[in-house]
């Protein structure tokens, strides 16, 4: 008995060690790409120049195996690239007026650049940008309609590209032809993701359908558990998600013998058996380039002073594919690699027309390849045909 307990203690420690090891490795990859340390030019002028700090606000904790962890790692890579700038970080910043207050505090501490890293931080960010013309606020995700202020911008990767590739792995792996998607809110980015996942699966398995459940919360673990359980009891055998904290869905799937496609971060340690692949963020290079543009006084009018979207076609998508799990065979891996080459080409996209929505209405005309900007508009309130489940009405 004692021996068993000692063994399980060792196992627990090993797991913790593995988790920490994973973190270190991720950080190392960041630094091993030759990041020259940059100096801040003294003479530049314009919004965002002349500051001594850069502020980052996160909606959740920095160790959430998800969105916030990835953004936090990006901020730490920026710190390495710009040793002379202080990097201020604030976790668990709600998407309301408290965010405005946190950003004001950062500005008071000398920050002239603010990264508002959650979708709902956009509006507080716009408020701060309006009252501080000398400060640049950039919003991670979300979209500014109409005229863009000279000191504001939104940026994002094209998340649906690696999600499409993961859909291929899911479509090959499923035995029930039922895939499950646990998501938070019906925002365009999520609807495009779910549609891309279904299209990826359908491209290799015409019978594959994607069942959706939403939780109306970016991180309510109990609701996630219930959503995952519901989907699994409907016969779903591959689960994926769009949540900020991703542990619960993956752990629930693994416990019930279902397979998992990750999102936001490499969580393969949570699902040694069921992990297929996933998508994860690598923000460091983009954060560094945004800061470089700002401190050189070139922000206004630059590509970042807009709704900037970058994907496989430009080469530098900050959203990359996670490693494959043990059950994904070489044939499937090749299908994924080939598809990646295809959607990276000028005429490629997960969303090449003709595509229909759930009601059979045309979403994208035959032969049309939508641009990155167009995708979020096309999927403002539609799922592609093959997704089972309705978009919640408010």
């Amino acid at each position, binding site marked *: 008995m004692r021996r068993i307990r000692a063994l399980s203690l060792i*196992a627990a420690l090993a797991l913790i060690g593995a988790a920490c090891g994973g973190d270190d490795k991720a950080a190392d990859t960041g630094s091993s790409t030759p990041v020259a340390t940059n100096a801040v030019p003294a003479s530049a002028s314009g919004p965002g120049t002349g500051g001594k700090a850069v502020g980052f606000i996160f909606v959740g904790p920095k160790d959430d195996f998800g969105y916030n962890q990835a953004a936090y790692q990006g901020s730490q890579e920026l710190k390495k690239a710009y040793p002379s700038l202080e990097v201020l970080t604030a976790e668990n910043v709600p998407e309301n007026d408290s965010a405005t207050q946190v950003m004001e505090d950062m500005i008071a501490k000398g920050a002239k650049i603010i990264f508002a890293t959650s979708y709902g931080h956009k509006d507080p960010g716009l408020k701060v940008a309006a009252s501080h013309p000398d400060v640049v606020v950039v919003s991670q995700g979300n979209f500014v309609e109409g005229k863009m202020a000279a000191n504001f911008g939104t940026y994002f990767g094209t998340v649906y590209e690696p999600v499409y590739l993961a859909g291929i792995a899911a479509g090959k792996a499923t035995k029930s032809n039922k895939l499950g998607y646990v998501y938070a809110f019906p925002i365009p980015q999520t609807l495009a993701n779910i549609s891309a996942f279904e299209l990826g699966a359908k491209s290799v398995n015409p019978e594959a359908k994607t069942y959706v459940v939403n939780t109306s919360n970016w991180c309510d673990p109990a609701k996630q558990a219930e959503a995952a359980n519901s989907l699994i009891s409907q016969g779903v055998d591959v689960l994926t998600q769009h949540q900020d904290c991703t542990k619960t869905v993956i752990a629930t799937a693994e416990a019930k013998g279902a397979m998992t496609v990750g999102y936001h971060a490499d969580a393969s340690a949570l699902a040694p058996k069921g992990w297929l692949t996933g998508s994860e963020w690598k923000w460091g290079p983009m954060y560094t380039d945004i800061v470089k543009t700002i401190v050189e006084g070139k922000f206004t009018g630059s590509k970042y002073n807009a709704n900037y979207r970058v994907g496989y076609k430009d080469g530098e998508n900050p959203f990359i594919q996670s490693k494959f799990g043990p059950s994904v065979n070489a044939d499937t891996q090749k299908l994924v690699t080939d598809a990646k080459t295809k959607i990276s080409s000028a005429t490629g996209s997960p969303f090449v027309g003709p595509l229909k929505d759930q009601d059979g209405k045309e979403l994208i005309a035959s032969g049309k390849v939508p641009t990155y900007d167009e995708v979020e508009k096309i999927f403002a309130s539609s799922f592609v045909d093959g997704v089972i489940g309705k978009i919640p009405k408010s």
Partner: protein
Amino acid sequence: MNLFLEVSTGAVRGGTSILFAALGETIAERAGVINLGTEGSMLAGALTAYAVTAQTGSPWVGVIAGASAGGLMALVHAIMVVRYRTNQLATGLVVLFLGLGLTSLFGASYVSEIIKPFKTWKVPGLGSIPWVGDIFFNQDPLVYLSYFAAPAVWWLLYRTRAGLLLRSAGEQPDALSAYGYSPSLVQIIAVTVGGMFAGIGGAQLSTAYANAWFENMTQGRGFIAVALVIFAAWDPIKAVFGAYLFGAALALAPALQARGYGLNQFALDVLPYVMTLLALVLFGRKRVDHAPEGLKSVFELAPSS
């Protein structure tokens, strides 16, 4: 799995954390103390159970630690309101925020930890009964523990001398003093034990149900538990039905969605709370008459005679 079966299974699984908290709150309120800090005790239990499970590898050790942490939070409340006669409602809220703050602070480093959680365990024999087996006997060990806990609390309150003393502390503290017992001590013990139950409820969330720790992961379930106690007229057996009703409302939304029904999701999300409110409005007024004497002054807020 059909809809009824799935929602019922989800109701038991999801209602258990609320059930434990409601049982604990029943004990505290029977002794004349309302503890709005129940949510804080749940959070303390959820984090401590998760952290200790991560350290030791045993979720059972985690649950014991979680119960202790929940009891400790409640002890703070008990000492304030019993010893220093502070306002029960205000103190409960302070204890909640204390729990929220402390668990956010100390919990940050456990968000990324991985644990070996409780596993679903099918009870031999019972688990094979159609319907009943699926709903009640194919669950995690803490659900099974709750099957014993609810009757045990009832038995304790109504069939033991300790229960008589406890209820006297809530109804006739002077009589208790006259017999040479300290009502204050009885109340402090009752509130602390109540907090331990809430701690187990929190532990069920983090180590058996969601298998994760996140800041504020209880999301108001402690308050639901406090409301349920009133709805259940301070009866631990009725609290079981209340907790499962709430659990069913929670399980209904994903079960319908997974079947592709296009219902108003936002309306479904408020359903559990609307049901709790309705229950309070329908039964609440009558219920207050059943309230332990010591609680009536708290509910009426105005200083009673």
